[in-house]
């Protein structure tokens, strides 16, 4: 080993500086996570665990979901907590980061279920859901997730799993009728699909095919993009070549949606473009600019209208510093769970709570009326279905164009 004592004096200052600053940084950063969590003393608590992606590619969704639960828990606690058999229970929300990876999600859920002993876990995005389910079902823990992929996962083998967010499939039963009314059925005879090259993308493509079949619309083609792609010109020009009447891109985050819109409009495409997953308008307007025209965004409510919606927006800004429509979409989950606990009269028997939750109907949430459907396919109503607030962007202006409860077919 080189004798570096000779070099020491010159580099001493730099080393000391680096040592001190890194120690300070590390200490300051580690403190909040290692210090004990605040626990409600003496009163009974119901713990809800979150195995959510707080970092990684889907951090945006994960953080929004978490905000919904943290805010909801505070509101409910302030109003006296959850009444179970006459006793008030306080809610405690524990969150662990899954980085958007399956293995980490499993680890996070293991910690929640085995160490923190929670009976309810929520999560976001396909990867985290898969990892979480491996643990929650065998452990009899109720789970709520937003997961558009892995359609076959969500079946009778998982009786305690609730899919709260409407996937593009359910949304289709709201936005397609809207588009047909707005643009005329005859001008929407063919469609094309652009989605990411992963499980979510494939499953959304399957949903999209089912929707098209139901509404009698023909496909002109489909394309998958890589998350690493920087430019969308090649994919979009290939899609446009077949002249689809409209394009569906799902699940594309706002940035990619905006890039696709921009590319399509520049290349001369005039048809409507629909993005079920974007759920916000700011980025699209910023990035696509003047090209943002005829953009259909289901489940996007950027201008809260009812009193409770405005209240949610205000609270989130106070609590978290900002509000995006997406967190509003998730804010109702915890209320549904709490209502189910109160209805079932127990905070322990998750099977009873699951049965109760399937019957819960909420009114006047950020997404309007919420029910659980899907008994035909899953044996129990476990798919969240709610009013679809569809925003339409025309000439750079976003307006709420349609609110309707999805017109689900009887076979649903």
């Amino acid at each position, binding site marked *: 080993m080189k004798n*570096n004592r000779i070099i020491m004096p010159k580099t001493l200052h730099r080393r000391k500086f680096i040592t001190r600053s*890194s120690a300070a940084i*590390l200490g300051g950063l*580690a403190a909040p*996570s290692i210090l004990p969590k605040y626990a409600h003393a003496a009163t009974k608590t119901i713990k809800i665990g979150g195995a959510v992606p707080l970092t990684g590619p889907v951090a945006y969704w994960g953080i929004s979901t978490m905000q919904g639960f943290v805010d909801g828990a505070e509101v409910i606690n302030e109003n006296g907590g959850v009444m179970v058999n006459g006793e008030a229970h306080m809610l405690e929300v524990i969150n662990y980061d899954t980085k958007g990876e399956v293995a980490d999600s499993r680890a996070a859920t293991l*910690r929640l279920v085995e*160490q923190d002993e929670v009976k309810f876990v929520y999560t976001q995005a396909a*990867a985290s859901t898969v*990892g979480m389910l491996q643990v929650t079902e065998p452990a009899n823990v109720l789970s709520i997730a937003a997961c558009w992929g892995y359609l076959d996962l969500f079946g009778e083998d998982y009786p305690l799993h609730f899919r709260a967010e409407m996937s593009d499939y359910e949304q289709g039963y709201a936005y397609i009728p809207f588009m047909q009314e707005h643009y005329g059925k005859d001008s929407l005879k063919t469609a094309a699909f652009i989605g990411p090259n*992963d499980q979510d993308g494939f499953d959304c493509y399957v949903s999209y095919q089912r929707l098209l079949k139901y509404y009698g619309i023909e496909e002109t083609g489909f394309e998958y993009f890589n998350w690493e792609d920087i430019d969308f010109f090649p994919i979009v020009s290939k899609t446009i070549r077949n002249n689809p009447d409209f394009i569906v891109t799902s699940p594309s985050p706002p940035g990619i949606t905006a890039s696709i819109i921009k590319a399509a409009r520049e290349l001369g495409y005039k048809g409507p473009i629909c993005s079920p997953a974007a759920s916000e308008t700011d980025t699209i307007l910023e990035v696509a600019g003047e090209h943002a025209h005829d953009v259909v965004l289901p489940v996007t409510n950027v201008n809260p209208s009812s009193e409770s919606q405005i209240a949610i927006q205000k609270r989130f800004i106070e609590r978290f510093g900002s509000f995006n429509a997406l967190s509003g979409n998730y804010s109702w989950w915890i209320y549904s769970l709490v209502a189910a606990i109160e209805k079932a009269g127990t905070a322990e028997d998750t099977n009873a709570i699951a049965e109760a939750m399937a019957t819960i109907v909420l009114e006047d949430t950020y997404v309007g009326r919420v029910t659980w459907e899907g008994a035909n396919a899953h044996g129990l109503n476990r798919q969240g279905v709610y009013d679809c607030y569809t925003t339409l962007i025309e000439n750079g202006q976003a307006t709420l164009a349609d609110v309707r409860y999805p017109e689900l077919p009887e076979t649903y």
Partner: protein
Amino acid sequence: MKYLDQIARYRWEGLFLFSLLFPFLCGFDKYLMHVAITISLNVAMATSMWLIWTLGLISFAHGGIMGIGAYTSALLLTKYGVPMWIGMWVGAAAAGLFALLISFPLMRTRAVYFFMASWAIGEVIKRNFAYFRDFTGGWNGVFNIKAPVLDLGFISLDFSDRTAFYYLAILVVSFVILFIYRINKSRTGMMFWSIHEHELLAQHIGINVLKQKVIAFTVACFLAGLAGALYAHYQTFINPKSFDIWKSEFALVHMIVGGLSTVGGPVTGAILLTVIDELLRAAGHFRVISFGVILIGVVILLPGGLESVPARIRNYLSKDLHK
């Protein structure tokens, strides 16, 4: 020297004893055993990457190689019912074979080019898992990779039980560490180090550099494949995203933070950093930042890595004595 070797031996024996007793010490806490199993797999990955490092090469194909072992074993079980006991060795062999084949073109490259080429290999492997959807399940992944049940007649061990799998993982990892340690101490190991120091000179002494590189790479990838197979049967679910660049990056970080001169380095690094990773799980972005700070801190302030700490302490103390 011998005195130091003795200390090292005591440390290893102590660690092994501790890991055997660990389930009892923690009261069979399932979550803690999960962390321990994760540590074991990380140790296997970090040490096998270290083996490649002893020749002076950094391979970023490690994530993909692990994936080959994992997918082989997983698909053998789910498609053909081959039990894990055979499957994991086949998986490791598949990874080793792939490494053997790819090393001939790969070893023509040096230093940074090798790094990039191995990165490319890792990426292509991962994407191939996704591309051949019908066979590998694509991005969907492979489900229900159950851990085996060992029926010995008088006793039946179900390895989906956390404690049982824990001991299995410890056993396999100990084997991996021992294997790497012995190679490193042997004449082959010394040849690796001499190639690391000065490749041209080693060649001139008569060492067949290409042959040694191929051997090291193949063996290391074999071990990584073994770790991958174990990983698959533990997680019961794998998909291509599990075997991306992050696996290689973490193995590298563990290796660097732990120290590069003996096999104890990656072991220490993997243990410490996995524990830190789990502790900071609630911290979101700060966790990643901490990793970055630790990494930079170690490289600049603690150039030998953590394993150089005992030596530094000894130096510091002996300096004082001589005053």
